């Protein structure tokens, strides 16, 4: 391997992850504290309903499943490898991962088409939104490409990328795992970092404010201006 490539690896897979995590944490926290109004899903369903369904729904179900798969392989690589030790189970996992990856890609395509073709939606699409879409497209397309042309990713993610990511977490970055990976995989990793770095400044922050308290709070919300209020609200 020549030195230029090694330098690039150093920048993309050691410097960049730390830089983007720093930006991500600082950016999202500062934005939440300084500009809470800007935290929103920025939904455009009100302006267009049909294509919204065919784009947003497959995209979200797809990305949530695929992303959870990545997180699981990162957290419990050993168990994933154990699961994959039987070929049939490996095939099931790989094929379902590919299906959800394709679902994400199709959904994203639907979202982008909708943004391009519906004039009302174009009105509420910013330049930054287009950057987000471009990055997501690179991310999802490279992911699907990897799934098709570099198969058994669920296994080699657990044995190659999990150790790499854990080495970053432990502040002992180990490039040994990554250096030999094919270009498509490297692209997939680098663009993931780019998305994380850009996220605090985009609409992607809506991921951080998913409404979990709703599931256990009381149906009605009452706010008292007066601080001294004895009985709690009913119903």
């Amino acid at each position, binding site marked *: 391997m020549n030195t230029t490539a090694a330098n690039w690896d150093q920048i993309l897979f050691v410097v960049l992850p730390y830089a983007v995590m720093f930006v991500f944490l600082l950016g999202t926290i500062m934005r939440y504290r300084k500009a809470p109004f800007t935290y929103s899903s920025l939904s455009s369903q009100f*302006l267009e309903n049909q294509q919204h369904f065919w784009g*947003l729904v497959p995209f979200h179900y797809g990305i949530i499943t695929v992303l959870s798969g990545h997180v699981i392989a990162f957290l419990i690589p050993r168990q994933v490898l154990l699961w994959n030790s039987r070929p049939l189970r490996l095939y099931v996992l790989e094929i379902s991962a590919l299906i959800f990856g394709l679902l994400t890609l199709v959904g994203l395509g639907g979202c982008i088409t909708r943004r391009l073709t519906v004039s009302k939606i174009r009105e509420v699409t910013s330049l930054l939104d287009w950057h987000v879409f471009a990055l997501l497209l690179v991310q999802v397309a490279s992911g699907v490409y990897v799934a098709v042309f570099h198969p058994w990713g669920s296994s080699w993610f657990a044995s190659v990328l999990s150790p790499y990511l854990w080495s970053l977490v432990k502040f002992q970055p180990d490039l040994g795992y990554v250096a030999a990976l094919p270009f498509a995989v490297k692209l997939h990793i680098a663009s993931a970092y780019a998305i994380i770095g850009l996220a605090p400044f985009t609409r992607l922050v809506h991921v951080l404010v998913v409404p979990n*308290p709703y599931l256990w709070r009381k149906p009605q*919300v009452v706010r*008292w201006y007066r601080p001294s209020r004895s009985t709690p609200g009913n119903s």
Partner: protein
Amino acid sequence: MDVRSQIAMVFHLDKCIGCHTCSIACKNIWTDRRGTEYMWWNNVETKPGTGYPTRWEDQNKYAGGWETSNGDLQLKSTSKRKVVFNIFHNPHMPTMDDYYEPWTYDYQHLFNAPEGSDQPTARPISMVTGEFINIESGPNWDDDLGGSPVYAENDPNLAGLTPEQRQQLFAVERLVFFYFPRICNHCSNPACVASCPSGALYKRGEDGIVLLDQKRCRGWRSCIAACPYKKVFFNWSTGKSEKCILCFPRVETGQAPACFHSCVGRIRYLGVLLYDASRIEEVAKLPDDQLVEGQRSMLLDPFDPAVIAGARANGVTESTIESAQKSPVYQFVKVWKIALPPHIEFRTLPMLFYVPPMSPVMSHMEEKTKEHNSEELFHDIEEARVPMKFLANLFGAGHEGKVRYALKKQKAVRWYRRALTVGDVDLAVALRMLTEADCTPEEADAIYKLTSLCSFDDRFVIPPAHREEAIQMFEDPLEHKQGAGFGFLSVPHRGM
């Protein structure tokens, strides 16, 4: 007993002339910003008609409000489980097409058009895209029965009417309509609040005004579908929901809300109701035919010492209790029982009540002369041009009893006053009518006074807010006009 105070409202439909002054007053103050052009927090509909947004009362389409299932009270649009699946795409949400695409006109063209053989015209331009559009609907597209075969005949309240009754509604010389002004009902069991995944919507403890915290709203859109009255709106530009705030900055400073203040027909009344919040759930679960009475029983007598003690214990201020005792709303709703909640079958327990309309003045033909009287004193209520069933669908959850009671009492008061002032009606007959309508001469005088001779202070009994320290009061709302609205220190931009 959990005594709470609520700023409640009465709209007297018999007095509404459909001038839309209320809507304009509201629009000028609150919804003149980008993204809110299509919003009418206050709008006036013609009934029968499909309203705004189109067919908002049809909950098969919009799934607004609550329903009871197996003794439980549940939102029609979202249960806690369903919200997880509906969050990416809300299946019941109305879109801009259900309201209308806001527009302005290309006025410049009138000045800049090159000389030609035709008059230049100002073509309509979409206020969303800036492109030329064909106007296909507006906020009052079916005003005064405009286009009635398409609109009025699709009024969901016509359900249960016989074909004959339907035909009569639109027959020449029997044609009838009335106006139905609407704002947020500031319900005591608000579906919008219960549906909000972010907990951004809330009811103010002190006065029951339902507000939306824009800084917590994440644009999940559940409230838009959940409100059965479609009175929460989505600002398509900022990506946040907005709603009627009952002009709380005005109310807090002792002024009537803009739509109340500007009302030409003086149809609007505002006052405090004390109610038992511990009974909300129980009342909201009652069967349809008991809902009106159930809600009334939830409202408490502000003169009852036990209620006053309960109010004090809950921190309701003396001045608020005093306001509750003078409240015109309490008179209309609880004492006289002539004001009824709209569509209480949606089970949000609205705190805006309507006096059902009597108009037009009723008469019948007898041997080629118009007669205003008959042996059967209340005959014209049953034979009114607006079928009782229609009003019952609007104000009685489909049950006619409460509506008939309110109309009979109004009619009796009219005859009694006519006997006193004009004298062409036998006083004995008028008194008999009062008795039959469950009314006394004293009560009739009080109803007459509060409906016909009411002063500003009779109509609006606003409790002092005791929010002297609230900083917003000292800010100048005009500073933010057409920009931030009230309360923001920066213009709310979409995203970052």
